[in-house]
């Protein structure tokens, strides 16, 4: 203990004040008259008595008060040991994203992490985190080095895409929970693509000292990769060159110009090979057509021959399902001849040879079984035979897809079949002389998605709508709205299936959509979405999710789903198989999935190709990050050899105590004063 301002201790002399008042000062008493002193005698002891501590407690309080005030001014402090190493939490974060498979990065990172763990003081707590597609906290803060080492050694390189923003969020959550300072060691290749869009997402709290262990050592090896593959998910005629072709994009990162050989493998067998000249750090497209695939699911792979520093990203996989063409039922009103014409024309334009369009009027649907069709289109066919309508409802609840377009006939009927709601109102924009346009459109919606949408809402901005039906959206998803707020395209899940409601017609009387090119793309995506082909085959990215069952399905009626991962194991427990709604595809490879509606699927899962860009974060940004939690101070060493102390000023506590003493003194003095007044 010491004093920050010891010269104030000279004020101790002020203690003489209460000593004088209580000990030295002669007691003054008001003389009292008496008739005679005849019977009185002088009391000698009275004068000496006042020299004693009559008000001992009051004297003590006053002396203490003065002493405390002097102490407060002298600012006493105690030395408290600064946070020792043992109080700091050692956080070891090992990057096991896909890019760490390059060269010997992961092995080096793990080795360095083990070395840091070995250097940890035995009493220090540590925690191990794996940074892959997700931030996985593998241990609680523990001091058991053997367990920590075991966990660390058990981390394997994954296929996910690391994101330092996710890491920052997780660390902030840990700090809020532990309330102790953290030494964070990040073992990573510090890939640039792992940076979040906003640097603030990866900023760490001030109590976290981060040490970056760049295992790539800022070296960027040349790396070619299959960046993307465009292939049909379903194929009915391999000889149809419009459909039966595979386009692959070869990208080079920090690569010189080179001629690369690309192979196409179907079910493990090379079927075709192409040579392509890839410019320096550029891209080249290679195409395989036609594709010779057998019936059923075909595991296809586009492979880059030759190899490089990162061979794991030299292949891209996908699934093509070959089947006979599926039938699509197009139901229209008897008087409507335009919509079948436009719809079939759009089908022909997209070359969907895998679909056969069967067009019937509403009255002809009585004997039809919807389950024999890939999906059903109701074009202004509001008045359906009840038998067909019932069968259609059953079909949807079991996973079927229905596309309903509401033309002018819809305004004459209140109820919309299968949709389960009624027509609220009709808008005849032609009558008021001003056509409606689309003001809001969700281009991420599967039936509307476009790879590179144009500025006019992907071509939808030019379309005019003369007539539309207003329907209460309820719980359905609204994918597009007109400028007066009328929902144009709605999606509702009914059981395991989907119902799309287009509140205008499919002919050129209610809108001019069929006259625009976007109509073809719309019909194409809608057909893919409703037939479920995209879900049943094709390719996905690692860490994407597959919806196994509808969330609306009651649990009692839920059927088991089945997932077989690339290693042939079933990652879902039996209980999870009955309840899980989604499944995360966390590894690259082929997943076999049986959905709750009984459909089988084979899904190819590729790593995020951003992992192929091995360019590290710029050193200044790394420095900014490591110093972001402590200003511009350099990165601190982890192990602190000497215990440091810092003074803790006690003046505040002393003043608080002085206040209490002052209050007690006031109360006691008031009491004595009252006594004196009574005596007087």
């Amino acid at each position: 203990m010491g004093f920050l301002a010891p010269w104030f201790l000279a004020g101790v002399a002020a203690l003489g004040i209460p000593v004088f008042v209580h000990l030295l000062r002669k007691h003054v008493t008001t003389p009292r008259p008496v008739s005679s002193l005849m019977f009185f005698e002088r009391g000698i002891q009275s004068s000496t008595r006042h020299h004693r501590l009559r008000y001992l407690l009051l004297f003590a309080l006053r002396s203490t008060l003065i002493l405390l005030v002097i102490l407060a001014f002298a600012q006493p402090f105690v030395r408290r040991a600064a946070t020792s190493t043992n109080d700091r939490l050692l956080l070891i974060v090992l990057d096991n994203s896909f890019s760490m498979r390059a060269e010997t990065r992961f092995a080096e990172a793990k080795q360095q992490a083990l070395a840091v763990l070995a250097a940890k003081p035995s009493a220090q707590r540590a925690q191990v985190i794996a940074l892959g597609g997700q931030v996985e906290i593998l241990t609680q803060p523990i001091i058991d080095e053997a367990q920590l080492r075991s966990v660390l050694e058990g981390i394997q390189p994954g296929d996910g895409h690391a994101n330092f923003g996710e890491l920052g969020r997780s660390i902030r959550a840990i700090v809020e929970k532990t309330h102790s300072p953290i030494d964070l060691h990040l073992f990573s290749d510090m890939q640039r693509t792992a940076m979040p869009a906003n640097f603030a997402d990866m900023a760490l709290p001030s109590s976290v000292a981060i040490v970056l262990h760049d295992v790539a050592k800022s070296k960027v090896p040349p790396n070619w990769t299959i960046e993307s593959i465009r292939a049909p998910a379903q194929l009915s005629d391999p000889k149809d060159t419009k459909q039966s072709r595979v386009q692959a994009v070869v990208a080079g990162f920090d690569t010189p110009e080179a001629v690369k050989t690309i192979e196409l493998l179907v079910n493990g067998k090379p079927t075709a090979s192409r040579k392509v000249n890839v410019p320096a750090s550029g891209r080249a497209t290679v195409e395989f057509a036609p594709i010779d695939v057998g019936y059923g699911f075909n595991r296809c792979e586009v492979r880059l021959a030759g190899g490089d520093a990162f061979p794991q990203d030299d292949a891209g996989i996908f699934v093509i399902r070959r089947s006979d063409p599926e039938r699509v039922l197009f139901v229209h009103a008897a008087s409507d001849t335009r919509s079948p014409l436009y719809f079939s024309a759009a089908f022909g334009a997209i070359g969907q040879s895998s679909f056969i369009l069967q067009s019937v009027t509403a009255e002809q649907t009585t004997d039809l079984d919807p389950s024999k069709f890939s999906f059903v289109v109701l074009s202004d066919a509001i008045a359906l035979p009840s038998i067909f309508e019932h069968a259609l409802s059953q079909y949807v609840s079991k996973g079927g897809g229905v596309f309903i377009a509401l033309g002018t006939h819809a305004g004459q009927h209140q109820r919309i079949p299968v949709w389960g709601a009624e027509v609220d109102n009709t808008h005849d924009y032609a009558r008021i002389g001003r056509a409606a346009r689309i003001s809001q459109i969700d281009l991420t919606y599967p039936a509307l998605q476009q790879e590179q949408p144009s500025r006019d809402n992907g071509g939808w901005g030019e379309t005019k709508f003369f007539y539309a039906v207003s329907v209460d959206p309820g719980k359905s998803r609204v994918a597009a709205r007109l400028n007066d707020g009328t929902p144009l395209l709605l999606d509702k899940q009914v059981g395991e299936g989907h119902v799309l409601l287009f509140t205008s017609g499919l002919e050129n009387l209610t809108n001019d959509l069929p006259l625009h090119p976007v109509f073809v793309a719309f019909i194409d995506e809608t057909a893919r979405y409703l037939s479920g082909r995209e879900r049943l085959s094709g390719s996905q990215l690692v860490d994407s999710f597959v919806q196994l069952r509808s969330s609306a399905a009651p649990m009692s009626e839920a059927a088991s789903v089945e997932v077989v991962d690339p290693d042939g194991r079933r990652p879902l427990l039996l209980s999870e198989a009955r309840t899980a709604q989604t499944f995360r595809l966390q590894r690259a490879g082929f997943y076999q999935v049986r959905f709750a509606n009984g459909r089988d699927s084979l899904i190819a899962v590729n790593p995020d190709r951003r992992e192929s860009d091995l360019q590290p974060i710029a050193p200044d940004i790394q420095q900014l990050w490591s110093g972001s939690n402590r200003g511009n101070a350099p990165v601190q060493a982890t192990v602190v050899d000497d215990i440091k102390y810092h003074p803790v000023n006690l003046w505040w506590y002393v003043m608080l105590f002085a206040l209490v003493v002052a209050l007690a003194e006031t109360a006691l003095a008031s009491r004595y004063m009252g006594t004196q007044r009574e005596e007087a």
Partner: protein
Amino acid sequence: MERFLDPAVLAGISSLDLLAKTVVDGFVVGLHRSPDFGFSQEFAEYRAYSPGDDLRYVDWNLFARTERCYLKRYRGETSSQLTILLDASNSMQYTSGQLTKMDYARFIAASLFYLAIRNQRDAAGLIVFDDDVREYVRPSTRQGQLMRLLAGLERAEPHARTDYGRPLRHFQALLHRRGIVIVISDFYEEPETIVRTIQPLRFHGNDVVLFHILDPQEVRPDLKGPSILVDLETNQRMEVTSEYARSTYRAKIQAHIEQLGSRTRATGMDYHLLVTNQPLDAALREYLSLRKAGN
């Protein structure tokens, strides 16, 4: 009745005349139950005539009605003289409440004068003294005597110390006729000196009564702590402990009272201690008892 004799109540009455009337009237009203007291010119009894009795006392009216001879006896009418010697020294100024000893003494004197003059038709006089005779009102039954006496009381303001020796020499010269002499004082003097000084009055045939006026705080002083006391007569200061006041002083004052009482009674005088928080009737009662005794 006692409420009207309570000194604290009487202190609120400014006029001594009214005060005395209030006290005496209240006192007399309370006496009617007592058969032992009577007044002059009052019928006493009938007694059968016996030879040798003075025929002047025969009730001839009764004889005319009954032909029996009875003597009508009256209480003998005596003309008594009351003289009050009032101590007006500074010590009589002391009070621990609202009533000083001097006020209390005035009340007693006024009440006694009223009782003597208005009720008993006695002559009454006043001598106010401290270290000398300050006021003298000759005993008389003349018209306006009561007013003169009360005025004398009003003028009696304490302003010197007590000295019994000098004024007592004058008393003997002033008191020509026998009567009742009441000395009202706090008697802060040695009992022997007091008795020696007052005793000659008794030798002259007076009935002498000492009314010893003390404040309650003088009898049982209660000091909260060490105090400096100032003598009202000498202005002498003295530091006194509360323990002494609680123990030794009380014993001393008690011994003084007892000694004074015993010595005065031993010399045929009467002694009464009157504490200023007591009612005034004790003094009046004492006067009437003395008068009944035959003065």
